[in-house]
């Protein structure tokens, strides 16, 4: 599997690594290098006396390097992959050296060990007791939050722009104390609204009602289907045991990696990968968290490629978030069809909203969309003359327009209701990230 330069660069943990990796993508930097179907390896002359040994697992993208960098992948890994994408013909050696074959061997052994690992016995009585105490704490917290929300709607939200950040942060902290971290995050979301932007009232009310729906749903969970109960519990802040999830049967498919969005807060990097199943036509969100310099992401997923993998979805009436059951095999991005127009998107959205009113944006692939301008705003028009606005503030509108040239393109999008953000386009049969 050979990635394009653009795809390799999306693996870099930060801008500095991208630049440093590029600087190492020259042939002269590498004392030796080779490639096989399984792996890519090279020895890079650094500032030390011995060259650094860099290796990449090509079947299930993973990096290892003898350099002391805490970044993952390091600049040597990025540089080697870039060199391979530019000059594959210069990788003439295809016999794995011992240091590479050992690593590949260990990786596959680890995979087997992982699947064989048995869970420790659990003290169920103690666990139930702890669980009960937590539920009580959460319910107390919810009562307090509801009272606070009622105060807001009684007095009117017109006063809110004058409130200081402590007004929101205090309630968020209270929710943390109540062990309802999901609600804490949602309350923080209220405080993060720009109260000086036009239409803040709508954004605020949307978020406030989402919180209310989650609270009420949780309080009345006995009347709801099991999947919704579990999803509401997750929204409140009860964690889902991912190991238990991993044991469940998932969906095997070829998953297109449509986009990666990374955010960093307090040294914690959150990576969101948006996936689309080629046969199942299911969409998925894979989240990965890693602390900068302390840990590395579980999987290195490359936007613009596909993976053959089994995905297990978190319990939900409208499943979206998923985890990847290893191993995965990385491949090229395949052509796909997606929806034929906006009508199909909104019908799907209506069904989803009917099942679960509180939900996040989802990815879609829509065929033959043309960017057009109408009423001083950019829209995406389908082949049936139906239009949806492009998300306000979408940064890459000119790149999209340039790729389109006024012609229709198959576009992957992320959004809900009336706002969609283009993620990538199929241009001349190649998927290009925006």
């Amino acid at each position, binding site marked *: 599997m050979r990635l394009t330069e653009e795809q390799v660069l999306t693996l870099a943990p930060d801008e500095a690594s991208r630049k440093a990796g590029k600087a190492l993508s020259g042939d002269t930097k590498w004392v030796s290098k080779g490639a096989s179907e399984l792996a890519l390896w090279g020895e890079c002359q650094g500032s030390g006396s011995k060259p650094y040994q860099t290796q990449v697992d090509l079947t299930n993208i993973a990096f290892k390097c003898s350099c002391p960098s805490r970044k993952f992948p390091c600049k040597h890994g990025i540089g080697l992959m870039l060199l391979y994408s530019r000059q594959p013909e210069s990788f003439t050696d295809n016999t794995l050296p011992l240091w590479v074959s050992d690593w590949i061997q260990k990786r596959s052994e680890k995979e087997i060990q992982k699947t064989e690992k048995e869970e420790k016995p659990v003290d169920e009585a103690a666990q139930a007791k702890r669980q009960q105490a937590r539920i009580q704490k959460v319910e107390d917290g919810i009562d307090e939050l509801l009272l606070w929300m*009622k105060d807001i709607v009684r*007095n*009117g939200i017109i006063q809110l722009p004058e409130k200081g950040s402590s007004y929101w942060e205090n309630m968020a902290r209270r929710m943390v104390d109540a062990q309802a971290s999901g609600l804490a995050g949602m309350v923080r979301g209220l405080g993060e609204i720009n109260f000086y932007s036009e239409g803040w009232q709508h954004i605020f009310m949307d978020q406030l*009602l989402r919180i209310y729906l989650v609270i009420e749903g949780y309080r009345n969970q006995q009347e709801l289907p099991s999947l919704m109960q579990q999803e509401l519990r997750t929204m409140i802040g009860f964690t889902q045991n991912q190991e238990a999830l991993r044991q469940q049967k998932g969906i095997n498919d070829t998953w297109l990696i449509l986009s990666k969005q990374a955010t960093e807060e307090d040294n914690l990097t959150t990576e969101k990968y948006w996936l689309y199943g080629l046969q199942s036509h299911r969409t998925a969100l894979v989240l990965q968290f890693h602390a900068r310099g302390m840990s590395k992401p579980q999987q290195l997923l490359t936007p613009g490629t596909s993976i053959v993998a089994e995905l297990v979805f978190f319990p939900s009436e409208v499943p979206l978030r998923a985890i990847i059951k290893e191993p995965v095999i990385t491949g090229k991005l395949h052509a796909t069809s997606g929806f034929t127009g906006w009508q199909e998107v909104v019908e799907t*959205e209506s069904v989803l909203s009917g099942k679960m009113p509180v939900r996040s944006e989802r990815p879609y692939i829509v065929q033959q969309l043309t960017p057009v301008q*109408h009423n001083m705003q950019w829209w995406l*028009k389908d082949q049936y003359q139906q239009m949806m606005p492009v998300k306000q503030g979408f940064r890459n509108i000119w790149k999209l327009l*340039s790729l389109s*040239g*006024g012609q229709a393109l198959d576009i992957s999008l992320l959004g809900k209701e009336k706002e969609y953000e283009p993620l990538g386009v199929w241009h001349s049969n190649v998927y290009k990230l925006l």
Partner: protein
Amino acid sequence: MWNNIITTALLGTGKKPLLPGDLPADLLPAANIILADKQQDQETHFLQLASLVFNYRQSGVMPLHKEGVALPPCLPEERPYCNTSAVYALQDALDMDLLPLVSFWLECCNKAQQVAVPECIPTLLDIAVAQKRIRNLAVAACGNRGQWLGRMNSYWQFPLANSNEELWQTGTPEERRQVLQEIRQEDAGVAREWLQQTWPQETANVKADLLKVLKINISADDAPWLESLLQEKSQKVKDEVWALLKLIPSSSIVRSYRRILQEVIPADEYSQERGSLSLPLDKAITDSGIATLSNEKNMSDEAFILYQLISYTPVSYWESHFTSLSREDIIEKFTGKFATALVLAAIRFRETAWLKLLLEKDSHFFPDAIELLNAEEQEAYLLRFFETVPQDVIQRMTTITSQWGADITGAILKWIAKNPYQYTRNFFDKHILQLPLSIAGDLEKYAPEEPAYQATWRNTSDHIRKLLSCKMQITNAFNL
């Protein structure tokens, strides 16, 4: 419907409770059930009704159906797109934030009759906004798609349509100067005519500035008009006019200089004597800029005047003056303090054959002589003086826009490696296009002997290699 929710939310349920009439008819049965629960307070009723409307709203979104909204499609490109390697090379140049390499990429793209791929066009157009110098190159490389995008983005609407004549009439002073320079290079007479036409409207500063352009391809045809300009009021303008007239062998002033020299320097090839200058000099001579007081201790005032007059007299004149002397003999005759005056004259009157002969015999470095030599001669001349005036030579090399020869580049790099604080990476960023690709493998050879400077040179040479690699990628990508 949703606005009613917002209005109540803004004012608060205490002031404006939400009423069933504020909701759509579809929701009334559900709303009535909510409102019938009298155990709940007003705020709960509001939150429940608002939640109902919230989901009603998000479940019923419809796309806008609108016929006839379209963008006129972009014209197909007449030239092929550049290949993937070229795209990668451009990205490298952009990542390094190096305008010379981006500019080189654009030149190569246009030379190869190709256009940039669509995804690069917005970036290139943004660069064209900020960098006027490469605007035309960027716009050409962006092809039809660039123009199509420009019609929708006012920042990218460049005044390309302006002809040289329009620019001359309405452009900024710098644009006008550049246009005049371009025209002067193509057709010296037309440039002079353009300047004559607008002359009365120009300010003194602009006149002085534009006159400098006439130095390009100056000839006897310019003399009559220039001489008429000696009546101008501005001293600044007059100084420029004199400077130009002194470059025309047939101008009155150069002929006057020649007449004085004719009287003072006997035509007899054996005579070592020379006549005396009739002082004071004519006013026209001093007005033209000939100084009458020597600024050198070892040169008398009279010798100094002669020195200046010789430097403003074509060297070829001496061939007619000393009819029986060979060129070598003429040079011999001026050995000593007047030798450099002959070199200056050969440079001023662009007498290449004389210049080459004089440079061979003169031990001084004349930076202005470089432009009259061909590439090979330039390099040999600069190498000759590199040991004595390295920084002057480097300074002069930076003005040569073509690629430097391997020998002189080697000498420069060796010197820079030994003097790491004089020239930093920035120097190589600016002059990467002049560096030949062949030096990439030789950089280690230039490492200084001083251990303290070796690490710096290692870093610098890494940087040079990176730049050269990008330059090579561009060259290879366009197969040039």
